[in-house]
């Protein structure tokens, strides 16, 4: 069973315990090993100087080259992310592909008051969500499912860390039965 690799690619150092928490949630959600991956490199050319944000498409392409040779890879950054048409995104993944990325930048809203634990919980949810996309899952309407759309951090806070039974069943379908997209 191919593992999920977790890679910190932020500018500053990762908050203590943050990645470990995410790693445990990924392993539990997808029932497979989740391992740390590390390297000194950082994605080049992802910063859009005009917007002052990092383009997820550049990061995802770069991850496939610089990252682990097999399995899924989730990069975590502290930089603000965007896709061209949207003002920002919490994260992005190749639907049914290998690479995913998510950011703590927008998830930190209100953390100063509520304490660092809130950021840890939010990041774990968005990490499972993006890796879920890499496993081919789309957004889910089941209340509380981690694959639900999250309009703003309030939406993130409202959902659980868990995949609902429908999404879980869909994960177990042989890949051929899932519609292949781009």
């Amino acid at each position, binding site marked *: 069973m191919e593992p999920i690799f977790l890679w910190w690619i932020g500018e500053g150092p990762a908050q203590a315990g943050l990645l470990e928490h995410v790693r445990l949630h990924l392993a539990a959600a997808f029932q497979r090993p989740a391992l740390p991956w590390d390297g000194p490199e950082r994605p080049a050319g992802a910063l859009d100087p005009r917007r002052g944000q990092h383009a997820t*498409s550049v990061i995802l392409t770069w991850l496939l080259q610089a990252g682990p040779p097999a399995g899924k890879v989730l990069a975590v950054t502290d930089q603000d992310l965007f*896709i061209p*048409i*949207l003002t920002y995104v919490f994260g992005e993944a190749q*639907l049914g592909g290998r690479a995913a990325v998510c950011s703590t930048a927008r998830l930190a809203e209100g953390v100063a008051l509520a304490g660092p634990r809130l950021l840890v919980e939010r990041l774990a949810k968005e990490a499972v969500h993006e890796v879920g996309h890499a496993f081919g899952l*789309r*957004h889910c309407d089941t209340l509380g499912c981690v694959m639900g759309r999250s309009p703003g951090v309030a939406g993130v806070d409202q959902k659980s860390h868990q995949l609902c039974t429908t999404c879980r069943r869909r994960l177990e379908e042989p890949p051929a039965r899932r519609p292949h997209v781009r």
Partner: protein
Amino acid sequence: MSGERIKILVVDDEEIVRESLGGWLEKDGYLVEVAADGPSALARLQAEPRAVLVADLKMPGMDGLQLLEQAKRIQPDLAVVIMTAYATVDTAVSAMKLGAYDYLMKPFDPEELSLMMQKITAQQALIRENAVLRQALKKDQGFRDLVSRSPGMQAVFEMARSAARTSSTVLILGESGTGKEVLARAIHAESPRAAKAFVAVSCASLTESLLESELFGHERGAFTGANARHKGKFEAAHGGTLFLDEIGDIGPKLQLDLLRVLEERKFHRIGGNDLIEVDVRIVAATNRDLKKAVASGAFREDLFYRLDVVVLSLPPLRQRKEDIPLLAERFLERLSVEMMKPIEGLSAEAMEGLLSYAWPGNVRELRNALERAAVVARTPVLQLSDLGLPARAEPGPAAPAGGALPSLDAVERRHIAAVLSSTGGNVSQAARVLDIDRVTLYSRMRKYGLKRDGEEDDTDPGHHQHS
């Protein structure tokens, strides 16, 4: 995701936008296709309908507004979202006027996109339900437009329904915009002829010779330019209903021709020898006073009596104001579905405006005002300013023309008419309001030529439905 996935077509000349937006919507559960320009998007729409079109405003060649216009022509129920980085109030308004669902200013928040798509999805589900409903109501569409709680109108419907079951000629009287054609269609739809054609001819819009050829048809070579045989509206309406609108406007020759057809049910095409027999039910309408026209010699008396078999009088909207909220509700409901725009109703101020306006154009004018409001409104509740009503109040009782004071009779007539209108034509109720007895009120009504809504004058029992 449950059920069938919604199909979205994304059109943008920039590949990076197509890819990122397409990928995002794909993850959101939609079935996404992308096109790089307007023409290829239109070709795809022609091949297969989509639920939503998301298009960029600025594109080389065909821009977003042109695409919107043509796409709506191919698929009127398409929900079109225009993306723009150059949004001005103008382009946004013209997009909405052309039938866009909404617009997004680039770049937009993920929540904004998500919510808009969810709204469209919910509305499309509603539209699918409504489509089934509309299909069922299609036959009855006419009477749907003729909704009324006014007793006068109820009496008209009652008479129309019983007339529908016969083949009698029907004459519909009423100002323009009161719904004469709608009523004619409803009569046809409720008649045993419903499966056959309903053919409408507006007699005022053609010259006498053109109208003659339009009604009776002509043979090849009957006159210059008659290159082929042409079947007229009487033949087209065979087995069905022929609606002759504005019949009070036809000239003496045609009056005679029509009289003959009505008497004999047979006619010649122009330039033809064969007698053609038709089975056609005639519904005629006019906003003129035919009796006056007969008296002045402008309209043949014998034709008048032929037409004046069942007479239905549609009251003007100002005499049945109690129907305005009801009509507005029905129209807005339908406009909301047609324009795929959430419309919840009217503000209190807007409703007040509708009720205090005099409606010279009647129901049609009301519909137009609401349609205009639905187009320009930026909120689901339509505002008074959206309606664009002329700032003009109804003349009050003390508004003498030319400075002269009105006579006591004129004031009394106007007051009785106003009270009758407020009671929807109910004489007993009006008598109570006026504090006179019914007999006195009836005699005043006769004196002033006032009628109950939908009822013929008691003093003139000569003809019409009970003849």
